[in-house]
């Protein structure tokens, strides 16, 4: 959990989650520090997305503890965790069909506004949230609606939307899936820039070659247990 003694930004201690008879997570402990990239891999069904669901609050039927700094966040739901700075992306992107990509980024910036005040805000589209995103290739998609995007474009927008929230902790579920060539390189560059800007990231990927050089830690989930892997 870190050799320098600093408290991790996000920390899970003894996280366990059972489905049916078997454990999908078995006393998993992991910490994410500011300005680091942590890689996570494992075979299909090993529990990687379940771990992200638990960390982000989408699944609170776990035992164990999740801390944001020194604050325990287990009782807190997913939208409040997002407002506290823990934002995740999805393996299958959950985008909004009728909104343009620009609207997606704007809504990411503004969604955490108090509900009552939101009802009085009419000219919300003028908030220029696209300046907050650094994902290359997304600018070409600004006018496209969520329903018109290809799967690779959806993954790009998914990640850009998470970044546009300004979160300090990003849980990225296969951000490089379906990306090739320039787009893949651009996404890797984006992850590097976010790390350099102090963001703590947990990245789930099956193919690590592009991310390993910048990774600070790497883990594999196997039979519910987290095993540390060498980063070289």
């Amino acid at each position, binding site marked *: 959990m870190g050799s320098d003694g600093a408290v991790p930004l996000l920390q899970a201690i003894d996280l366990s989650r059972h489905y049916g008879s078997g454990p999908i997570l078995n006393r998993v402990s992991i910490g994410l520090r500011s300005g680091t990239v942590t890689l996570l891999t494992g075979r299909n069904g090993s529990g990687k997305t379940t771990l992200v669901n638990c960390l982000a609050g989408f699944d609170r039927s776990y035992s164990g503890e999740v801390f944001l700094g020194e604050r325990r966040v287990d009782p807190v739901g*997913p939208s409040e965790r997002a407002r506290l700075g823990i934002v995740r992306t999805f393996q299958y992107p959950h985008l909004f069909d009728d909104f343009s990509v620009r609207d997606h980024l704007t809504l990411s910036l503004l969604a955490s506004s108090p509900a009552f005040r939101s009802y009085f805000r009419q000219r919300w589209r003028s908030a220029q949230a696209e300046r907050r995103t650094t994902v290359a290739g997304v600018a070409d998609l600004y006018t496209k609606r969520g329903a018109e995007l290809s799967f690779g474009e959806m993954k790009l927008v998914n990640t850009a939307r998470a970044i546009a929230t300004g979160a300090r902790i990003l849980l990225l579920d296969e951000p490089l899936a379906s990306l090739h060539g320039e787009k893949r390189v651009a996404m890797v560059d984006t992850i590097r820039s976010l790390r350099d800007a102090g963001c703590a990231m947990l990245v789930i990927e099956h193919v690590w070659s592009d991310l390993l050089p910048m990774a600070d830690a790497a883990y594999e989930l196997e039979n519910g247990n987290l095993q540390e892997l060498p980063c070289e």
Partner: protein
Amino acid sequence: MLDFLSYLTQIAVGSALMALALSVYVDGIGYTVFHLLGVSGVSAYSYALLTVACGWSVPLALSIGILLGVVCGWLCSECVRTLRGDGLALATFGIGVGTFEALRFVRITGGVFGLAGVPQLGVAAPVPILATGAVVLLVGIGATALWRRSLGGAIVRCVQQDEWGALSIGARVEGHQRLTGAFAGALAGASGIYAAAATGFIEPRDFRPTNLLVPLAATILACGRTPLGVVGGLFAIVLFFQAVRFIGQDPTTAGPVSEILVAVVVGMVLVLIRLRRRPKFDG
């Protein structure tokens, strides 16, 4: 012609406000709910009782009635906060029809016989009726349009289209559920009060479940378009009912025949709309 238009206004404006209330849920946050008739009944009866039994002034009773609609709408959304889909529809059906049955039973509301002498919102003449109806309708349409265009309206549509996506960007889903419930409750309350004031009489039959058919039909036929589309669709359906009544000349069968035709058309449109929707990745 003026008499017919004022009659149309009296029977349609209340339904139009209910259709707007339903559209706030169906087109907004994407929930199918059935409690709004119950909410409109509570507001309507409170307006009637405060004016008829307690002698309060019309503006004060009207304000209290709409406030009650807001509170009931809020409370109902709190009750069913964790439900979605068919569970939510069923639970709100229980609330709505249960309220209707309770109104039929409670003596103070006049039971099945209802209450007469409910004061009208303006002068009882064709032109003032038309004017009042138009003003009420424009206020309802304007409020709904402003809500749709607002940031809050956009966020509830995000919740409708992908709730997990909305949660992941920090949208305050519960807060929006409550406010949607309150806003729809206000519209539903206004609907019930207008209907009671328009006829000067209120009875529990005005709030039975089949009275949701026309507003729900207008909402579905509008296909998620503007509030003006919802209201336009509703007036078209009401005119259709009147046309069937006029052609059929038999009032006992005209109503059921109209309902059958509307139900069949709405069912077909609902199927077509849903089939056009792009399948989302699940899980």
